[in-house]
């Protein structure tokens, strides 16, 4: 994580056991699990330069505009959500061939650092609710974005 003047940048890397073209296509295909579009309840996706996307999950909407779509090596789009406080953050993906696999890098930059995105109330309550499962000796439950964003039960 890079941190400067309250603007954050996150960088993630994964090695995917498939060639770059297949991974690139998989990232833009809403039917493939793991890409952001796959979890959407409502989705509009036009993955070409200046094409727009909209997706929503449990009442949280995300918007963006594709700025680079270069198969099979690179995708870049803007990303706006309540967590970006109306600012356009940038998501950049690169896909590099590594033998028979692909080194996939995702950089999410221009994110404002603020309380809403850090330990926000829903996430905190969610965490407390499943505290027993996470830290007790019973079965553990995986963190799920959907659960953390569902309305808090009081």
């Amino acid at each position: 994580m890079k941190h400067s003047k309250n603007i954050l940048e996150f960088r993630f890397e994964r090695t995917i056991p498939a060639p770059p073209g297949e991974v690139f296509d998989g990232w833009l295909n809403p039917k493939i699990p793991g890409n952001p579009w796959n979890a959407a309840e409502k989705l509009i996706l036009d993955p070409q330069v200046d094409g727009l996307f909209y997706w929503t999950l449990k009442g949280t909407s995300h918007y963006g505009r594709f700025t680079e779509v270069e198969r099979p090596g690179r995708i870049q789009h803007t990303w706006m959500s309540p967590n970006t406080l109306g600012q356009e953050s940038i998501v950049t993906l690169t896909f590099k061939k590594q033998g028979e696999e692909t080194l996939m890098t995702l950089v999410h930059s221009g994110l404002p650092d603020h309380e809403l995105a850090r330990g926000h109330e829903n996430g905190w309550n969610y965490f407390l609710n499943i505290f027993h499962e996470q830290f007790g000796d019973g079965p553990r439950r995986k963190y799920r974005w959907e659960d953390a964003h569902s309305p808090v039960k009081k």
Partner: protein
Amino acid sequence: MDRLTDVLTALSHPTRRAIIGQLANGPARFLDVAKPFDIALNAVTKHLKLLERAGLIERRKKGREVYISFRGEPLREVVGWVHEYERFWNERLDEFEQFFKNKKERRKSNEAL
């Protein structure tokens, strides 16, 4: 060490997590805390000291008994330490990677048939 490191260290051991899970039900006396574990009492004492240092438990005297109770506040720091998008992208990318791993496995199995 800073507080976050103390908390993460305290949570890193399964016995300590089990103790916290037990105390989340309510305060308990030392021997009641130690009862479910098949370890020496001084080992339980060491675990409790680490939990206490992290601020995850506190001891209170009630009459002649000392009760140990769970404090959730330090966990807020752990939750706040991870940014929402750090969790979101890690979750998505893990799932994406797993999809391709499964696909590769399936392909291998089909080739072997």
